[in-house]
C-alpha cells in the first residue's frame, strides 16, 4: 500500500516537472521557387500522436525526421521533441501555414500561423516535371497509387517510334508494408516502356496531411501505331495488412512516465498480418495522340530515327583505292530513339558500296534517352579522283515536324584506280529465288561427295587414350627387358660372381677343416680365401709380400703360419683353429672384394 502511494506521488511529480508547450518556427521567411526552408515544430512534453501538418495548395512538405532533448535542471527533468519538415514550392507567391494542432496528455495545443514567401527563380524545374504540379490525386486504395508525367514540351502529340521520357512515381502510405512485385508497365498494348531505370529513387512526400513513401522511375515511352490512346501505368505490389480475423494485440498499460517513447512500441510486431496482391493504377490517364510520320519529304535513306541528332566525330582514311574496302567510323550524339538510327552513308551514295558494320550505343542519362552511338563499317569506293567525302544520315525532328538530313564536315580524300561503277552490287536485300543459277563467280559445285571426315582429331576418340597408354607401357617393357638382359650377359659381372663363388667355397673348406681339426687343410684354405679376396688377377700366384699392405697384422700372421706349415713342415696347435677362423672372418669383413679374372 505504501509502495503504491509513493509511485503515484512520484509520477505526479514527474508530470509536473514536464514543461508543456508547442512552438513552430521557419528557418527563413522566404525562399526561391524550387528551394525549401526548414519548419521546426517543437513540442515540450510527449504528444499523444505525431503532429499532422495542414495541407496548403502548391506547398510541398517533406518530413526531415525528429529529434528529442531531455535535461535535468535543479533536479527537475524536462523533455522536448522537435519535428522537422522541409517546406517549399515551385510556384511563386505568399503561403500561409495555418496553426498546427498537437494533443499533449489529452489537451490540445496549437501554434501561431506562419507565413512563407516564395520568390520567382531562374532555375525552376521544367514545366510538367515539378513535384508541386503533380495532380496529387486522392489515393484510389489504401495501399497507394501511381502517377506519371510525360515530358513533351508544348507538343501534345507524339509519333510512332518516338521515345518520350517519362517519370513514374508510386506512392505508398507510410504505415503499410509494401513489396514491389515488378517494375511499372504500361496498361494496354498501345504503348511500350523502354530503358526503365534499374534503381528507382526513393523519398517521402506529404499529401493531404498523409506521409507517403515515393518510389520514382525514369524511362522512355513509345507508341506503336497512330491514333489516340489513354496512357496509363500499373505497378504490382504485395501489401501486408492486419488480419481482420485475428485477435487484437493487448497493448501494455502506459508506464509511469506516460510517454509513448518509453512505452512498448514492439506490440505492432506481434500483430498478425496477411499478404494481399494489389495492382496500383493511375487515377487519371491522359489521352495521348499518336500521329503518323509525314510522307512528304521523307529522305530515301530514312531508317526511322526520331529525335535530334548530330555528328560528333567522323574518321575516314585520306587515301584509298577503288574496289578496295576501307574502314569508316562515325559517332553521332543527340537524343531520341537511337535504336532506329542507322549507320551513316558516304556521299554521294552511288559512288560507294557499303556493308553493314557494328554499332555501339552509350547513354548519358538514366532513361537512355540521350547519348552517343558509334558506328564502324566497311565501304568500297567505286569512282577514283581527288574529291570531298562526307558522311550523311537523316532523322525526323518531332518538334519541328520535319525530316532533317545531316551531313558531316567534308574530308579531302584521294581515290586511285579505275572506275568500278559497273561492279556496284545489288541492294543488300535477300535476292529472289530465280529459275537459273546466278553464281558464276562461285566455284563449280562438287560432283562427288568425298569421304566422311571429322572436325576433331582422333585424340578425342575414347579408344585413343588406352591405345596410347598401352603402346607406351609396351615400349617401357621392351626397354626394361633389354636392359635386364644386357646386365645378365655382362662378362665382368659374370667373372665377379664366379670369384665370389670360389671364395665362398674356400671359406667353407676352411670352416670344415677347422671343425675336423685339420690344421694344414685349414691354413691352406684360409690362405686361398685371402688370395681370392685381395688379388685381382691369378690369385694362386700371389705372395704375401705383394699384398701385405692390404692385410692386417693378424691376417699376415695367418698367412705366415700357413706358409710355415706348407714349406717348413711346422705344425700349429689345433686348439687355435677357432681363433684363426675368427681372424679370417673378421678380415673378410674389412677387406673389400676385388674383381678376379677367371683362371
Amino acid at each position, binding site marked *: 500500500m505504501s509502495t503504491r502511494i509513493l509511485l503515484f506521488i512520484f509520477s505526479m511529480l514527474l508530470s509536473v516537472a514536464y514543461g508543456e508547450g508547442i512552438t513552430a518556427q521557419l528557418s527563413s521567411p522566404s525562399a526561391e521557387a524550387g528551394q525549401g526552408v526548414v519548419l521546426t515544430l517543437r513540442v515540450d512534453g510527449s504528444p499523444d500522436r505525431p503532429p499532422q501538418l495542414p495541407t496548403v495548395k502548391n506547398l510541398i512538405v517533406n518530413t526531415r525526421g525528429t529529434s528529442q532533448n531531455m535535461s535535468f535542471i535543479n533536479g527537475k527533468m524536462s523533455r522536448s521533441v522537435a519535428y522537422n519538415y522541409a517546406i517549399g514550392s515551385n510556384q511563386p507567391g505568399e503561403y500561409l501555414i495555418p496553426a498546427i494542432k498537437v494533443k499533449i496528455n489529452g489537451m490540445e495545443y496549437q501554434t501561431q500561423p506562419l507565413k512563407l514567401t516564395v520568390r520567382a527563380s531562374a532555375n525552376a524545374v521544367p514545366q510538367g516535371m515539378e513535384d508541386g504540379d503533380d495532380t496529387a490525386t486522392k489515393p484510389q486504395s489504401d495501399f497507394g497509387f501511381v502517377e506519371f508525367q510525360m515530358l513533351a514540351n508544348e507538343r501534345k502529340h507524339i509519333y510512332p517510334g518516338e521515345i518520350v521520357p517519362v517519370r513514374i512515381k508510386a506512392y505508398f502510405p507510410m504505415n503499410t508494408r509494401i513489396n514491389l512485385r515488378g517494375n511499372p508497365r504500361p496498361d494496354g498494348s498501345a504503348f511500350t516502356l523502354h*530503358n526503365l531505370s534499374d534503381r528507382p529513387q526513393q523519398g517521402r512526400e506529404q499529401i493531404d496531411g498523409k506521409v507517403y513513401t515515393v518510389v520514382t522511375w525514369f524511362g522512355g515511352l513509345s507508341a506503336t501505331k497512330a491514333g489516340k490512346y489513354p496512357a496509363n501505368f500499373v505497378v504490382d505490389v504485395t501489401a501486408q495488412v492486419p488480419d481482420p480475423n485475428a485477435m487484437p494485440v493487448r497493448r501494455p498499460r502506459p508506464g509511469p512516465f506516460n510517454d509513448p517513447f518509453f512505452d512498448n512500441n514492439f506490440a505492432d510486431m506481434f500483430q498478425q498480418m496477411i499478404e494481399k496482391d494489389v495492382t496500383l493504377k493511375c487515377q487519371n490517364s491522359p489521352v495521348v495522340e499518336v500521329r503518323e510520320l509525314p510522307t512528304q519529304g521523307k529522305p530515301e535513306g530514312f531508317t526511322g530515327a526520331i529525335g535530334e541528332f548530330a555528328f560528333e566525330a567522323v574518321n575516314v582514311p585520306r587515301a584509298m583505292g577503288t574496289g578496295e*574496302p576501307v574502314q569508316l567510323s562515325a559517332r553521332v550524339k543527340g537524343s531520341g530513339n537511337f*535504336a532506329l538510327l542507322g549507320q551513316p552513308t558516304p556521299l554521294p551514295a552511288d559512288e560507294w558500296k*557499303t*556493308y*553493314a*558494320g*557494328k*554499332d*555501339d*550505343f552509350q547513354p548519358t542519362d538514366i532513361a*537512355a534517352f540521350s547519348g552517343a552511338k558509334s558506328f564502324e*563499317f*566497311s565501304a568500297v569506293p567505286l569512282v577514283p579522283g581527288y574529291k570531298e567525302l562526307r558522311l550523311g544520315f537523316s532523322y525526323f525532328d518531332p518538334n519541328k515536324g520535319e525530316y532533317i538530313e545531316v551531313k558531316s564536315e567534308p574530308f579531302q580524300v584521294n581515290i586511285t584506280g579505275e572506275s568500278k561503277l559497273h561492279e556496284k*552490287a545489288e541492294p543488300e*536485300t*535477300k*535476292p529472289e*529465288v*530465280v*529459275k*537459273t*543459277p*546466278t*553464281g558464276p*563467280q*562461285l*566455284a*563449280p*559445285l*562438287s*560432283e*562427288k*561427295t*568425298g*569421304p*566422311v*571426315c*571429322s*572436325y*576433331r*582429331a*582422333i*585424340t*578425342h576418340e575414347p579408344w*585413343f587414350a588406352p*591405345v*596410347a597408354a598401352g*603402346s*607406351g607401357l*609396351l*615400349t*617401357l*617393357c*621392351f*626397354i626394361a*627387358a*633389354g636392359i635386364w*638382359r644386357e646386365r645378365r650377359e655382362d662378362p665382368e659381372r659374370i667373372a665377379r660372381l664366379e670369384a665370389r663363388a670360389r671364395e665362398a667355397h674356400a671359406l667353407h673348406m676352411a670352416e670344415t677343416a677347422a671343425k675336423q681339426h685339420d690344421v694344414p687343410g685349414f691354413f691352406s684354405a684360409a690362405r686361398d680365401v685371402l688370395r681370392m679376396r685381395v688379388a685381382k688377377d691369378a690369385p694362386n700366384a700371389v705372395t704375401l709380400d705383394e699384398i701385405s699392405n692390404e692385410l692386417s697384422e693378424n691376417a699376415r700372421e695367418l698367412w705366415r703360419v700357413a706358409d710355415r706349415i706348407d714349406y717348413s713342415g711346422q705344425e700349429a696347435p689345433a686348439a687355435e683353429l677357432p681363433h684363426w677362423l675368427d681372424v679370417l672372418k673378421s678380415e673378410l669383413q674389412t677387406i673389400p672384394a676385388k674383381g678376379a679374372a677367371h683362371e
Partner: protein
Amino acid sequence: MNKLIALFIGLLAAATLAQAADFATANADYQAGHFAQAAEQYQELLKRDGPRAAVLQNLGSAHFQLGDYGQAILAFERAKLLDPGSAAIAADLKLVRERAGAFHVAEPDRWQALAARWPAHHWSLLLLAGVLLLPVTGGLWLLRHKPAAWVVGLCAVVAMGTACAAIRSLEIKTQRAIVTANPATLRLSPFATAESKGTLPAGSEVHLGKQTKAYHHIKTPDATTAGWVSEDEVEPIVPKDGK
C-alpha cells in the same frame, strides 16, 4: 560364309550408291535454282552421314545464292577445316566474305598457317603413327638393333611432337564462331531483356567465351567489341557434336 560376305558387300554398295544419288539430286535442285531445297538436302546428308568437305562446299554455295551470307561463311569455314588445301573452297570463302563485308578475320600466325595445311584429323593420324612406332623402338632395342632403334625412336618422337603442337594450334579454332543472324544483338547481360549495346552483321567472325544458359559471351578478333549474344545468333565453326 561367302554368302554373308557377298551380302555385306552388296549392302555397302547399295548404301554408297544411295548417298551418291541423294547428293546428285541436291546438285540438280541447285542447278535448277531451287537453292532452299538444295540446302535442305545438303543439311540432311550431313546429318545422316557426317561432315564431308564437298557437301559443305555445295551447302555454302546454296546459302550464298539465298543471300544468307552468315550461313554461307559458316559452311565454307567448315569445309575449309576438312579440306584446307582446296583452292575452290578458299576462293568461295573469300568471295562470300567480300559480299558480306566481313573483311576482318583473325590473321593466323606462321605456325597456325602451317598447321592449317592439314586437317586436325590427319595430324592426329600422324600422332597415332608416332605412338605405334614407340613399341617398335622398344622391340628393336630388345633385339639388339640399337642404331635402328634410335632412328625409329627419334622419328616417333618428332612425329608425336609435331602432331601434338599442330593439333593444339588447331584446337584454338574450336573457339571461333560465325554470326549467323542479320544482325546479331550484343547485350550487356545474358538475358533477353538486358540492354542492347550494339550489333554485329552476319558473317562476322567472333571468339566464343563463356556460355550461360542460352547466351554466349563473345569477342571480336580485334578485341574491341565484347558482349553476350543469343546462341541462336551465332554458331561455332566446329560444331559441338562434331557433326
